[in-house]
């Protein structure tokens, strides 16, 4: 099933996204952004947030976007997420070929769901998971209900969605905290809940906007492990915006360096990486990674 279509700023749907969801078989989770440009208009005139940018992220790839503030990292991510309509260019995200199957009847939740078939279609299903530094947990929902929220919107029946949410909470090492309200959880725990919520629909693509920026070092490392573990299992494509170069190098397959005025991708650094499942790497024990880290720092801040 393929729904490729060209979209420009003057041809957008109600949600304001210049988004294409395509499903060529075998290319689940590919992100392709072509000729993206974005301009913010304010009282003081127009600011080019993003000059013509092309970006392809392969299925299952982990790409980090680094750069000083004003370099358009978040703008690019929000355009890919469909939250911003670019001034020009197209974004297409290929989904799993089986995306027309209701979300509720994945491997974990078997049995067909009444009502979910209608809304669980490719159009209704979120194709990206999205997570920011400021957790956007619903403060009136307990952790479990927060994780289950995307499934609830998609019409998955209650027992099924709670079961899946509980399993995922356990996966992010928060078993036993499902009954807590967000304000009763620490910052790290809230980010675990946010991560679980971003992943509950098993989106082919996960977009992360400095999700660990406000956390202490130990908590951040623990979350890195949780994140890589789950993404390995699901084969999720990840785009991570971060200002932490060590985080970028230790997690990703490829680092894109952006520069400001106007925001654009200036260089691309592949991260040397052994085969096998991805792991959180200790950059200080691998000379190649230290070298890359220094090179990045020099190019960005030198």
């Amino acid at each position, binding site marked *: 099933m393929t729904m490729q279509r060209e979209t420009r700023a003057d041809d957008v749907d109600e949600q304001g996204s210049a988004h294409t969801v395509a499903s060529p078989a075998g290319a689940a989770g590919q992100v392709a952004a072509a000729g993206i440009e974005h301009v913010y208009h304010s009282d003081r005139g127009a600011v080019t947030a993003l000059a013509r940018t092309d970006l392809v992220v392969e299925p299952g790839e982990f790409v980090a976007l680094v750069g000083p503030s004003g370099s358009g990292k978040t703008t690019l991510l929000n355009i890919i997420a469909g939250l911003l309509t670019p001034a020009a260019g197209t974004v297409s995200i290929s989904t799993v070929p089986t995306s027309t199957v209701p979300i509720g009847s994945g491997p974990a939740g078997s049995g067909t769901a009444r009502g979910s078939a209608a809304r669980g279609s490719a159009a209704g*299903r979120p194709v990206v998971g999205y997570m920011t530094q400021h957790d956007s947990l619903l403060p009136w929902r307990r952790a479990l209900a927060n994780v289950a929220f995307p499934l*609830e919107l998609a019409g998955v029946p209650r027992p099924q969605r709670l079961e899946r949410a509980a399993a995922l909470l356990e996966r992010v090492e928060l078993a*036993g905290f499902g009954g807590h309200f967000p304000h009763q959880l620490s910052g790290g725990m809230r980010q675990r809940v946010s991560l679980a919520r971003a992943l509950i629909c098993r989106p082919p693509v996960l977009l992360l906007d400095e999700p660990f920026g406000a956390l202490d070092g130990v908590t951040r490392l623990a979350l890195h492990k949780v994140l890589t573990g789950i993404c390995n299992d699901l084969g999720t494509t990840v785009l991570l915006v971060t200002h932490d170069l060590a985080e970028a190098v230790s997690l990703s397959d490829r680092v894109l360096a952006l520069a400001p005025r106007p925001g654009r991708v200036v260089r691309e650094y592949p991260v040397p990486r052994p085969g096998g499942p991805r792991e959180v790497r200790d950059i200080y024990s691998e000379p190649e990674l230290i070298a890359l880290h220094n090179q990045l720092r020099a190019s960005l801040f030198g």
Partner: protein
Amino acid sequence: MTLLQAGPAVTPPARAGTALARPRRGLLVPALHVVFVAAIVGLWQLASGRWIDPLLVASPSTIATRLGDWLGDGTLWGNLEPTLEALLVGFVIGAVLAFAIAVLFTDVPPLGRFFENYILALGAVPFVALAPLLIIWFGLGLEPKIVVAALTTFCSFFANAYTGLRETSPQLLELGRILHATRWQRHLKIRFWSAMPYLTSGVKQSLPRAAFAVIVIEFLASNKGLGYLITSSGNNLDMPGLFGAVIVLVIVTQGLLYLVRLAEKRLLSWQPQERR
């Protein structure tokens, strides 16, 4: 590494402390209230006939006797019921209408920007001053009271509901967009709950105002209701009746507010303690 994994996997903390402190505090405060009210009533009874002329201020015992008589002969319920009915029906109509319009205005912001000031201006109209007009239109029955209660509630509740719905955090609305929430899901599952603190305080604000408006209409023109009971007792120089009716009015409105606060406690149980 074991440390990292063990970190978050602790068991949820039991809420000690509060459980121990609650029961004693829970009994002490109500007991103090009972003592306080009993002292006031006792002092009043003592003063009546000694320092206060019972023809000007009725004594608690005569008030109690009068309320007992009214309870027995059906006067109390016969006058309480129409007031309560007008208040509750009017309140529900006004609140539902105000909420629906607030939802519409948040959904279509230009509409809200255009009409908001008209609705706020409506709030400046003293509806009780329209009593003669309403009585000509609707007669002496429940209708004019319901209309006034609804209008009063509408104006006061609308401001709260509209502000609350608009104050929804942009991050939560962004979440709704990411998750492809439908328009109804956005209003029902995100905005409505986000506005809940405003909605409950809107009820707490508008309910007493609506009660006040109903009573005033009953003062002006009616043959039933607590307001009527107050004025007719006053006109007959029946001090125990006048005081009794006022006391019933206070107890009823405070009782309603108490129920609202109970509901609020449940509806806002998700807020941190210090914000409640």
